[in-house]
């Protein structure tokens, strides 16, 4: 079975759900459940999808290697998690969408549950995209859906503000990306990455125009993955967007940016590439700046969601560093695989934080860190899960987050890149402070007694799976390696 059929299936499902939403009055939660069901079916089916099973005629544009399969799995899992979080968050959506929230209990929920499916299709196609057009179309499919989702709460000023910021900067980045692609095509006469790679290895003449094109493309994708200096939109958009969407941006959008970046950078840093050293320099500088900015700016944050925004920037920095270090043979991983591994560790810990945030918000708890004081007393299970997730984000050993950092640190060591290693250490040290700050708040004695946060059975299941994933990956990292390297 080809993975393309899964993408067609999910796209069709999204359209059907949108039609149902419009013409039939069903409880909106059913739409979410149908979407989750469809995604679960696709996830199971993914295990039966063969590598390299590509319909004839698409071979040049669409590649199904183990990396693509892994990213497709990541996309499916994150979309499922996002929908579960969205169900938890539904009251808030209704409150800010409906003209009269008391009367119309489910206003606007249908599309909110269906749109993530379209994003997911975009992410899945992107995982396989190996030519410029496919990359661009799938990237736009997700980005345009995100424009809608970020600004979804139309009666919330901060959501609208986030939407406008994301739209303008997103459009700008798309422009840069297309311009870069145009240059690349103009220089090489090729649209497929394989073709371009071939031209670059036998490049004669000046590399300046090539570097210009590469810089534009890096800038364009830099916006998507929140790399410095293209990260300015992140804190505001993360804070303003509906929490499930923020979670999706943080994991899904980042993953999609990194699969594209992995493929492009692998091509540029190939052994005989004419511009490998310069590209590496660019990546290292961006990575170092991103790690430092994300971690140091996070120290002062008091809003948990915003803090996670900066944390997301910092993790993008580590991921970029991993991409730039190419001497990873001894680790049994290519740089792209290290990035994929890191993203797999990043997924559970980030979703736990956003799940708790969403559930708390729906039950009247603000997003300030101060409002989480005493969570470990009122809801011990949530307190424990959040502690674990934050410890993992900080990179404490025996959690998933450490394994991700471990590979990044190790590849920088093998590269002999001690300056980057030092920066990574500084960043991680700052991380100890701002993540532990939240942990300390969770375990503190609150000034006034908080209401306990309750989770639906579905969310509890998700939480249990995510917690288990953090511990299992942290103690038995081969679990992910076996999925990744087949």
């Amino acid at each position, binding site marked *: 079975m080809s993975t393309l059929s899964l993408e067609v299936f999910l796209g069709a499902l999204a359209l059907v759900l949108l039609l149902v939403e419009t013409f039939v009055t069903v409880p909106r939660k059913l739409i979410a459940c149908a979407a989750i069901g469809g995604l679960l079916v696709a996830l199971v089916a993914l295990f039966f999808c063969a590598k390299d099973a590509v319909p004839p005629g698409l071979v040049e544009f669409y590649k199904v290697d183990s990396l693509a399969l892994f990213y497709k799995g990541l996309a499916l899992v994150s979309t499922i998690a996002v929908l579960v979080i969205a169900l938890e968050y539904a009251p808030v959506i209704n409150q800010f969408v409906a003209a009269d929230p008391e009367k119309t209990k489910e206003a606007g929920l249908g599309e909110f549950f269906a749109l993530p499916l379209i994003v997911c299709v975009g992410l899945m196609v992107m995982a396989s995209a190996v030519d410029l057009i496919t990359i661009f179309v799938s990237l736009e499919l997700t980005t345009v859906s995100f424009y809608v989702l970020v600004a979804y709460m139309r009666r919330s000023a901060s959501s609208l503000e986030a939407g406008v910021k994301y739209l303008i900067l997103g459009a700008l980045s798309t422009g840069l990306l297309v311009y870069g692609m145009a240059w690349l095509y103009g220089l090489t006469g090729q649209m497929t990455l394989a073709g371009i790679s071939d031209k670059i290895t036998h490049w004669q003449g000046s590399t300046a125009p090539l570097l210009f094109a590469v810089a534009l493309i890096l800038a364009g994708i830099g916006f998507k993955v929140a790399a410095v200096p293209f990260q300015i939109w992140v804190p505001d958009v993360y804070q303003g967007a509906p929490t499930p969407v923020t979670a999706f941006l943080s994991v899904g959008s980042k993953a999609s940016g990194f699969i594209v970046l992995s493929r492009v950078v692998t091509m540029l840093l190939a052994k005989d590439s004419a511009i490998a050293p310069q590209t590496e320099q660019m990546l290292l500088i961006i990575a170092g700046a991103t790690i430092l900015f994300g971690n140091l700016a996070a120290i002062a944050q008091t809003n948990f969601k915003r803090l996670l925004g900066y944390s997301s920037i910092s993790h993008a920095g580590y991921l970029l560093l991993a991409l730039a270090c190419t001497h990873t043979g*001894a*680790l*049994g*991983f290519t740089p792209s695989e290290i990035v994929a591994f890191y993203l797999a560790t990043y997924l559970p810990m980030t979703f736990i934080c956003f799940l708790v945030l969403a559930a708390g918000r729906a039950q009247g708890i603000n997003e300030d860190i101060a409002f989480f004081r005493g969570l470990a007393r009122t809801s*011990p299970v949530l307190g*424990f899960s959040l*502690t674990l997730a934050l*410890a993992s984000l900080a990179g*404490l*050993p*025996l959690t998933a987050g*450490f394994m991700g950092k471990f590979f990044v*640190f*190790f590849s920088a*060591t*093998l590269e002999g890149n001690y300056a980057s*290693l030092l920066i990574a*250490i500084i960043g*991680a*040290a700052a991380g*100890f*402070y701002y993540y*532990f700050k939240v*942990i*300390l708040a969770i*375990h*503190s*004695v609150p000034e006034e007694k908080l209401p306990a946060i309750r989770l639906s059975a579905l969310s509890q299941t998700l939480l249990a799976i995510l917690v288990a994933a953090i511990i299992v990956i942290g*103690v*038995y*990292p*081969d679990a992910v*390696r076996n999925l990744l390297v087949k």
Partner: protein
Amino acid sequence: MSPLEIIILLPILAALAVWLGAPARLTSLVASLAGLALSLVLAVQYQSHSGSGMAFTSAHTVLTHPHIQFAVGADGLSLTMALLTTLITSAALWSIVDKERIYYIASLLISAGALGAFLTTDIFFIYSFHELALIPTLLMIALHGHGEDRRAVAWKITIYLGVGSLVLLAGLLGVVWWCSPESGLTFALADLKPVSSNCKTEALINLNFFVLLIGFGTLVSLFPFHAWAAPAYASAPTPVAMLHAGVLKKFGLYGLIRIALPLFPNVIQTPWIQQALLLMLLGNILVVGFITIYQRRLDEMLANSSVMHMGYIFLGLAAGNALGQNGAALLMFAHGISIALLFLLCGKLRSNLGTLEFSKLGGLATNAPFLSLTFGFAAFASIGLPGLANFAGEILVFLGAFQSFSEQGFSMIHVVTILSLWGVVMSAVYMLRAYRKIFFGEATTGLFITDPTPSQRVPMFLLAAVLLVVGCQPSLLLNLIQSAIGAK
């Protein structure tokens, strides 16, 4: 399943059970005493059966490239450290009375981290387990500690230890890089080969060793990376102070003996590294020693004294011979027990009197003869009185440091050793002064203390007995240690 895995898992499972609502005191005491009994049995078994090499091994691969195993195994040194950990854990848990669950959970987790670090034989897990203590320590000091500035102190220890462990991680990755066999990178200690340097790589290897020294040293409060230790111990709740000063701090030294010294043989005798280490440890002994003399509160004095005594252990390592290392290992054990006992007594005084300022205390011996006797016992042990455990360790350290005298003539290490000897005088000054001031002299009005109840005496008695037994018969432990390090 190896019995060592059971020792490591016991406190983790107990912590989980307590979190889920099992009776806290009973569960944690049963778990810790079972761990103590088990490690005692294993130590005896080890000595009577094999007596050398790694025993009770078991390994499960968790990552194929680079090769990482959850591998357990113990030799004499690991077993000594495991005994130290389980002894102090039992005493610390026993001493907790009427406290919240988090006291038990945190103590058990810290203990599990230490046991895991001492009993695993894969660098990855040795490193990982140590970090298990970081969050419990932060929470316990920040939320249940003493003193106005406990939050600042909690952050200080967390950041220091966090940065120290990241530096250590970089150093350990270097170890794996230098010492792995050609078949591929591995973290298994058994497969790592001691590095053989040539002129090209020598500088890098020396640098790597120094990074390890700083990384491990920060965790042991090596001067000048010691600023976190004294305030943290002074503010920490009693069980955490006992476990941290008694056990966890020894991890850095254990790591040096287990990883850095054997895999980078003779690098410690590189002139600039040895001189730097000697200067730093002299800072521990003399600078911190003077600071200790000037303390006005018992908890701060004890905390500083524990930082100071780390200098002797480093001296044993700097000597670069087996004698010094044997002494260092023995002193690690002895110091752990004595400082844990002192913090236990200090906690008792604090909870009963509400103050630990020397100026407000006096004449407590009249009504609390047992407390006075035990405190004197621990204080004398800490000074290094012959017949108590610390003396045996210290004398070996000094002998080890002087051993190279005949070959090299008079060199820096001998000067440092002679200066270090004055540290013993300083210890005597502050310990005896504190002892006299608190327990003898004029009784202050309003402050009154009676002897602890029989139940509370159990952990004190346990630790004091160990000090006496090991002091009179150091060969009990020394045989174990020598089987791991070598006797010469």
